[in-house]
């Protein structure tokens, strides 16, 4: 069951790679939230209740509802145009995302470890690198944030790989989630929206030597 969810998760990444509109991204993020909820539920069913509740709340309440809504709000509030304006054409980005996935698959195969579930590893790594790829290849600050969120999801998956024994770590990961998302998004994107008319990173390239 987990595997199916995770494969869906990976596919969602590919879809993100080829989609052009910001709304699609938010939708995908929400979808990933649901997937993660499923995975977390299955993986962490045996850990103590409060932790489990916390995790579930986080995945559903936060990843699936709060953040996408908030993203849309920010997009509307700052009148951000709908295109993601990548530096590269979609085709190429799809290719790259695919290579990333394959690469992480190969890398995971290099693991000589019995009780780490490779599939989790694959999903996590591909999410991680795809997120980085988004950050690097997209123009808009908001897309950078989305890329960051994808990375977060990847980390979440990775933390599930050890989560069963390490509730503490999972919670920390969630803490990171909440902190980073709220802080990054909430405060700064709006501030930048106030200061700069269009949300282009090139506006933010004055501090250099």
């Amino acid at each position, binding site marked *: 069951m987990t595997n199916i969810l995770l494969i869906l998760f990976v596919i969602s990444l590919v879809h993100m790679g080829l989609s052009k509109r910001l709304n699609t991204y938010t939708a995908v993020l929400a979808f990933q939230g649901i997937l993660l909820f499923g995975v977390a539920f299955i993986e962490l069913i045996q850990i103590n209740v409060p932790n489990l509740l916390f995790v579930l709340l986080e995945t559903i309440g936060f990843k699936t509802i709060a953040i996408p809504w908030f993203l849309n709000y920010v997009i509307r509030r700052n009148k951000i145009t709908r295109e993601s304006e990548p530096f590269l054409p979609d085709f190429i980005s799809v290719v790259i995302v695919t290579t990333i996935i394959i690469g992480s698959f190969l890398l995971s195969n*290099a*693991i*000589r*470890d019995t*009780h*780490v579930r490779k599939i989790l590893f694959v999903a996590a790594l591909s999410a*991680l690198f795809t997120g*980085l790829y988004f*950050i690097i290849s997209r123009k808009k*600050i908001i897309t*950078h944030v989305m890329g*960051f969120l994808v*990375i*977060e999801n990847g*980390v979440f998956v*990775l*933390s599930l*790989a*050890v989560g069963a*024994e*390490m509730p*503490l*770590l999972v919670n*920390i*990961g969630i*803490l*990171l989630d909440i*902190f*980073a998302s709220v*802080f*990054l998004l909430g405060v*700064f994107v709006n*501030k*930048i929206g106030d*200061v*700069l008319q269009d949300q282009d990173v090139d506006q*933010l390239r*004055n*501090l250099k*030597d």
Partner: protein
Amino acid sequence: MMGIYLTGAILIGSALFLNRHRGWNYLLVTAFVLLQWALTIHVWTHRDRTDLVYFTPDALAVLFLTTLSVISVPAFWHSYRYFASDKEIPRERSIYFAAMVVLLAALSAAYLSNHIAITWIFVELTTLSASALIYHRRNVRTLEGTWKYVFVCSISITLVFIGILLLTMGVQEAGFSDLSYTSLAARAGLFNTFWLKLAFLFIFTGFTVKAGLVPMYTAGIDAKDKAPSPAGALFSSVLIMVGFLGIFRVYAIISHTEIFPWAGRILFISGFLSVFVATVYMLRVKNFKRMFAYSSVEHIGLVTLGLAAGGVGYYAAILHIVLHSFAKSAMFFQVGQVYRIYKSKSIYDAGDYFRFNPAGAMVLLAGFFVITAMPPSGLFISEFLLFSALFAGGHFALLAAVLLLLTVIIWCFGKNIFKILFIKPVGFDEGSVESIPPVESLSQYVLLAGVVYLGFFPPGVFVNLINHAIGLLPK
């Protein structure tokens, strides 16, 4: 004690945040300083005794904490001077001081924590508070600087988290679950090095942001540049130390495994590249605040080299980073004064500083000699030991390259500093020059004197602390 400290810090922080009245503000900050020193003293008396489960003040922690407490005092004092000289908006002030208190508390906790995850949390907190400090001036540039800092820091902190997860996998495979440094170090032999390698790589890369090392030193430069100079002083001294600490702890764990040489090589690469990059930009920058920031990159690079070289290099590294913290914070405090006189950070606008503020100019001059590790600067001793470590390790080519780069750095450094000190600036009206009382430079003299003293006549307890600290590493 730790519990008292943390709760106290939180209370004071929130109180500062809410309070708008200056007098109360002073009072609260004083209270925090007292608390800070109380913790320091307590830690001195309770060495290596675990407190609140996750906090154990080992030698390194004690050393760093003391450094922090020492630097915090002038930091607050100069912050007040900063507000006194600048337009003082109560709201900004309260945010500023609240953030600074949180930053210092988080740093202290990060130093003291004996558990990698706890360290991680508090490092995260430093990002939070630091960004508030950077954003203090609230204009486009600071916004940009803050955005980059926060963004890069979050990524890096994520990398560290991934590293921790990977480490955990190794731990699980090794069949235990305790993530405290001591147990990790004790069981290091059991690890599957594959996980360890990955973990170290990610954690190292993550912490380079705080430590200001290649590859991710970049955001730190903007932060030190854009933050008010007292905050900049903290960033380039104690915040660097926390990054170093994070790396050092994991390195200490690695040191008990067979991938130790591999980790050492990574440190070599990163350290040398840091010195190199610092040189590249020392040649280039015309903004003296950024120049000092780059000089921090150079020094932390040297520290890393010392750590990698091993032997006496360990000692040199710790000594160097502590002394550098004193010297560099002093320089940043002074930079604040320079900025107040010229209202600009470009060396083209600054000049003939000796005329306008002799006391400060002396600090700048002495500071230059200290930072560039010319005797009688204490940094000379650490660099001497550091180079002998490199020499003893047989890294002759590396040593030669580093020496060459350092010479170039001193050259650029000197050119700019002496331009500021002696050469008349063009188009600068001397009518509206703010006169700065010499007493403001006092703290900097003290810090620089401390560098000389600790370098040349180190008290026995200081040496013992360092020796204990490097006891974690194999001889």
